[in-house]
């Protein structure tokens, strides 16, 4: 296959959650001469990204160097911070929220790697900790919340605005995209078990309650990550669970009662919460984010793929940083396609 410098490179992005859509936007912003088509069987509000609360409090990936994670988080924070300070904040579903992360025992690492990325990070005072009698230590800071149900449509508008296409289709095999597309960006999350034959990715089931409690203005997160209260634009997310290997998307009523009880222990006024809705999401979990190129080969057919998936509980928190890196990889693929093959010397 030979590409002239002016030929359009046709890129397919598989998956329309936060990774697929943000990568599509990044590519259209940064890689000239491409056409982009986002292909997915599910779109907002039915993606995993729609269930996530979207708090910018990052996890730690065991298989990724800390400096790299910090860069991903910082890139994402900076990108969303610019949005929250603009008139677009409400359309994009990005808000600022302050609150506390609380610990039942003093942590070995008192200051996390992301402390200087969020705003106003400091340790909680004794008076602040009085509100949480079961906890002895805490962090107070201001961070961002990015809500799927608004952010994903906002990204979709941007994709279409750059003349990208959006297709509803279930892909069973990446080779279906050949030869219509020149490069595939795989953002299929848990779908990669099948699409990429990746056995390292597995679900971590999360159940949450989205409730009405508009008087709650602060987030509260237990450091274990299991119990949290995240106030959003039009509801408060109460969570949660971390059930490894559980694929069940139906809410469990007993679990809902138990989540409510744990959250009320931290914030008693939640007993007055109303209009409770149960939601389940399967975090696409992996020891590390898969962010790499792969050249698929079948006979004489070649299909360059950029994998961009496996963020587990850190999807929203890391999405823009990893999308930028995925875009750099796509650019490398584009350069390879545009480089004329050397003529054989005979």
């Amino acid at each position, binding site marked *: 296959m030979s590409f002239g410098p002016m030929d359009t490179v046709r890129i397919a992005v598989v998956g329309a959650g936060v990774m697929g859509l943000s990568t599509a936007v990044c590519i259209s912003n940064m890689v000239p001469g491409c056409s982009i088509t986002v292909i997915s069987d599910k779109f907002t509000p039915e993606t995993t990204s729609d269930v996530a609360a979207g708090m910018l409090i990052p996890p730690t990936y065991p298989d990724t160097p800390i400096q790299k994670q910090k860069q991903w988080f910082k890139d994402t924070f900076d990108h969303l911070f610019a949005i929250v*300070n*603009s*008139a677009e*904040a*409400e*359309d994009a579903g990005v*808000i*600022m*929220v*302050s609150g506390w992360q609380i610990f039942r025992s003093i942590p070995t690492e008192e200051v996390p790697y992301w402390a200087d990325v969020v*705003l*106003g990070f*400091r340790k*909680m*005072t004794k*008076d*602040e900790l009085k*509100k949480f009698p079961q906890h002895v230590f805490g962090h*107070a800071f*201001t961070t961002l919340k990015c809500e799927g149900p608004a952010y994903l449509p906002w990204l979709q508008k941007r994709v279409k605005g750059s003349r990208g296409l959006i297709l509803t289709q279930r892909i069973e095999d990446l080779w279906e995209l050949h030869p219509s597309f020149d490069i595939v960006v795989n953002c299929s999350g848990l779908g990669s078990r099948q699409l990429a034959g990746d056995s390292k990715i597995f679900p971590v089931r999360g159940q949450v309650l989205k409730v009405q*409690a*508009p*008087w*709650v*203005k*602060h987030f509260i997160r237990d450091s274990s990550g299991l119990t949290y209260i995240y*106030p959003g*634009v*039009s509801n408060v997310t109460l969570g949660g669970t971390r059930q490894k290997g559980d694929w069940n998307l139906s809410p469990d009523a007993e679990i809902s009662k138990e989540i409510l009880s744990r959250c*009320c222990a931290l914030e*008693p*006024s939640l*007993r*007055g919460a109303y209009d409770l809705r149960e939601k389940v999401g399967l975090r696409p979990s992996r020891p590390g984010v898969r962010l790499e190129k792969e050249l698929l080969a079948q006979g004489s057919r070649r299909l360059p793929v950029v994998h961009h998936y496996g963020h587990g509980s850190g999807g929203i928190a890391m999405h823009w940083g990893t999308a930028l890196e995925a875009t750099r990889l796509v650019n490398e693929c584009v350069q390879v396609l545009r480089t004329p093959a050397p003529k054989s010397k005979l």
Partner: protein
Amino acid sequence: MMRVVVIGAGVIGLSTALCIHERYRSVLQSLEVMVYADRFTPLTTTDVAAGLWQPYLSEPSNPQEANWNQQTFNYLLSLIGSPNAANMGLALVSGYNLFREAVPDPYWKDIVLGFRKLTVRELDMFPDYSYGWFNTSLILEGRKYLQWLTERLTERGVKFFLRKVESFQEVAREGADVIINCTGVWAGALQPDPLLQPGRGQIIKVDAPWLKHFIITHDPERGIYKSPYIIPGLQATTLGGIFQLGNWSETNNIPDHNTIWEGCCRLEPTLKDAKIIGEWSGFRPVRPQVRLEREQLCFGSSNTEGMFPTQGSNQHLLHWQADSLLLNHLRSLCPGWLYLNK
């Protein structure tokens, strides 16, 4: 039988009535507490206030007021962990105070939670300002709180009367032993008080649930509350920035609306998408010092005690502790009360 009449049904009147009933009902076999007012919620000044606990920046001329502020904050903070907090109109809220130049820390910095100065990145969000504070404080929403107080008082058998009191004498003649004048900005109608003036405010309430922080700007040249402020409440968000001393107009006016709207949208551009729920005007009862004192009134052959708590713009802050002082005064009225340990 002791009859206590509270005149005024704003936050001062109702909380005073509750305080008295709570502390003395069990001791005095027959204590009758009655509330007389010509305005009840939602028509009181308290209903218009945003309800944020934040005193003036400079120390009060009467140091006792600083104690009252602190005791009110601590009392409300102790209720934050109750499941009923939201029903009372009470919630924690954090936010920003913004200045155009460095200022000394306020005397209440250790009363609020987590007081600190703003970082450079935070100040970048507010291009018109170069210095500021961040802290966590409390919202006590007037309407919700008055409704809650009314319920508690009703449970206790306290009776409410819609009437315009023309004089203390008329109330004394009906048999009141103690009169507590909590008429706020209108106190001058019952007893002339040249130190008391209306500090007219106008506010716009909007639906902007994405805003979780208060933002209060300060302009020392223009004076307190004359600079835009945005205060999220339990449901709606209050926008303000009007303070007109001596203005008795209770109707909303367009120039003030524009001042508020333009100032707040400049501060927080997302407000352009906010739906306006309503607009109100109210009179902060402004006085150089809170009036809290006891006066013996003589009408013909009867003696009546009068008590006058009337204060400035921050009446929410002072009310609870002011009531304890009242009770100390009440105690001295009746020798039988001296054995009380409060």
